[in-house]
């Protein structure tokens, strides 16, 4: 008996001291960015895209800004909020980061919010898309999007284009509910009718039984929101159930037609109309260059998550230039407010009131370009603010 306890003592001591010892301090003059992303688990594609885009931005723009070196510390939170919180805290306290960035899902962004407030460190949200996020801390700035931006616009488009009856299929979590509510609000106000409303579990997306109900409801179109990464699976089952031949078209925010997966979806996706912030087919010189270099570096097409990460890095770089390399949190946030720039997605700016992104929303249709599927933009709504907040 007692021999065992000696053994456990030794084993415990070795393990604890070996792994808990803090990492040696780094050079003082580097600006550190703690990048917290889901690199494993169901949301891993989001994390991968953002990580790639951040690397790309640093390749193109160098790793020194205003005389200070930029250092990225990447952490995997697997999109689980208690991990996010722990990692954010450790990055702030132990690694002394000057920014925290990333945040694949809304609960993760929210979990880190109080830490950003307390430590007075800018939290750059590069993915999560629920309206409320930027209200949770005065140090949060977002470079991705909100679901309200695209959902209201696709609703207006649907009303104008003779779509009367819509069935909805949305992922059952905060962004999905945002998408649904904003769509419903504008669509029913315009005289449209929701004939069927289905919420799909986020974690276990088997769409088949829900699609059958969609088919039976015989709507003019179905409004779909699934997070980045699940679109491919959705379209596969959409085609398997024969909905592409039943004349029920898919409309929605562009998440379901993520450029990342679009080309693999097959012809069932043709003709899908979505409203979104970014398409890899966006016809600007800036974007052509972005897509080409992303493809060259990582062998795949960038999606809207990649663009959000790319712009997040741009925001950090520009803010540092403005403060002359000073990393005081309040000064950085002031520098970011109202900042305007030309992104691969088009012109964007940071709303000085809400610290949320203001951007063009495009209505796009899936078409074949040079044998590959692309979201081809055909209508632009300029400088769209987050209506989730402007309504209040």
């Amino acid at each position: 008996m007692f021999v065992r306890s000696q053994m456990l003592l030794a084993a415990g001591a070795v393990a604890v001291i070996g792994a808990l010892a803090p990492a040696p301090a780094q050079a003082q003059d580097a600006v550190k960015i703690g990048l917290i992303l889901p690199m494993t688990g169901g949301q891993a594609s989001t994390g991968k895209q953002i990580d790639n885009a951040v690397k790309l931005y640093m390749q193109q723009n160098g790793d020194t800004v205003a005389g200070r070196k930029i250092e990225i510390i990447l952490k995997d939170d697997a999109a689980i909020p208690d991990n996010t919180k722990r990692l954010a805290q450790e990055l702030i306290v132990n690694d002394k980061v000057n920014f925290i960035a990333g945040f694949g899902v809304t609960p993760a962004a929210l979990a880190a919010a109080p830490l950003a407030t307390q430590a007075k460190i800018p939290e750059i949200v590069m993915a999560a898309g629920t309206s409320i996020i930027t209200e949770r801390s005065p140090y949060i700035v977002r470079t991705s999007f909100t679901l309200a931006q695209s959902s209201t616009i696709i609703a207006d488009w649907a009303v104008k284009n003779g779509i009367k009856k819509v069935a909805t299929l949305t992922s059952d979590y905060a962004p999905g509910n945002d998408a649904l509510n904003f769509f419903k609000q504008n669509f029913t106000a315009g005289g449209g009718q929701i004939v069927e409303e289905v919420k799909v579990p986020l974690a276990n997306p088997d769409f088949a039984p829900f699609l059958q109900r969609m088919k039976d409801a015989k709507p003019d179109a179905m409004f779909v929101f699934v997070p980045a990464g699940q679109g491919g699976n959705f379209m596969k089952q959409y085609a398997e159930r024969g909905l592409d031949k039943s004349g029920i078209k898919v409309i929605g925010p562009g998440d379901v037609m993520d450029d990342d997966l679009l080309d693999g979806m097959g012809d069932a996706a043709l003709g899908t109309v979505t409203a979104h912030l970014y398409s890899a087919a966006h016809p600007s010189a800036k974007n052509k260059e972005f897509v080409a270099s992303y493809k060259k570096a990582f062998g795949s097409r960038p999606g809207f998550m990649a663009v959000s990460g790319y712009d997040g890095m741009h925001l950090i770089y520009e803010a540092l230039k403005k403060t002359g390399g000073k990393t005081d949190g309040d000064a950085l946030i002031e520098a970011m407010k109202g900042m305007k720039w030309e992104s691969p997605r088009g012109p964007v700016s940071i709303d000085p009131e809400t610290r949320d992104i203001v951007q063009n929303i495009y209505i796009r249709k899936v078409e074949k370009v040079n044998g590959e599927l692309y979201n081809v933009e055909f209508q632009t709504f300029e400088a769209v603010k987050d209506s989730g907040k402007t309504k209040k």
Partner: protein
Amino acid sequence: MTAQADVGRYARQHARWHWSEIAFWVLALCCAFLFPSRFLIMSDIVRLALFALSLDLILGYAGIVSLGHAAFFGVGAYCAGLLALHGIVTEPVVALVMAGLAAMVVGFLTSFLVIRGVDLTRLMVTLGIALLLEALAERFSNITGGTDGLQGIEMAPILGLFAFDMFGKVGFFYSLAVLFALFLLARRIVHSPFGLSLRAIKNNPLRAAAVGVPVNRRLIAVYTLAAFYAGIAGALFTQTTALASLDVFAFERSADLMLVLVIGGSGYLYGGLIGAVVFRMLQEFFSNLTPQYWQFWIGLVLVVIVLVGRARMHRWALWAPNLIIGLLSGRKAIVAVPESDAS
């Protein structure tokens, strides 16, 4: 001497505290001062250790395999979360006990399903119960908050004195205190005649029944007790992180727990505790090294651990300590092998 006195003497002998056990707990407490910036991960380890202790009670002592232990963890977590969110019971310690009792009730009710059948059936039944509860939590998302989880949980100060701080200091001491208290209880239980009868059941249920051990009643009792422990672990999770979402019921949580016991060894109380430390440290180490592919390395290490065998690794790890002890005391050092491996 009567048989009863024999059992008593045996139990007392084995229940004696060894100096290294005391040192273990002192060391755990010292961690708070050695690593003042790592309270969150240390709280996480303490919670996992308590959760592993719970599984060890049924797996290591009574031989009930379970792949659904997260069910009780989840019940405890949501119970504590809802109690705090709606201001029903604001004092954390009282809420903790209530959450544990809620999990205990669920444990008691489901134990009747679990005692039927043998290992494989039990794996399936426990897994099923956890999945069932997860689906229920998802279905009633108006109560549980679904995938987004309960939002806006605020914890009142412990006993009205110690407020939870952002960097997890109070949370760590609170968790450690709870772990220690429950560990003492578990230690008392496994060294009691009740604990011995569980071991008898684990080794051979038929023979245990033949000598008069009421097998089913004992299994129900220990399963219910383990559910209580897991519920407390879940409640601690919610209270110290102010979060509770569907992943408290996740299958990965139950599976990770098995791994913890594989690493640490089952059938002795410190197994879960050490396993939790090693498992989390490995995770931390590899995910810092490679945020994208750390799961691969964890998998590899686990395979190696199982292939090499814990006993042999312990012997290597203890080569130096044994040598020192051997030199100091002037006698040949004893090579340690856990009882469960030796038998």
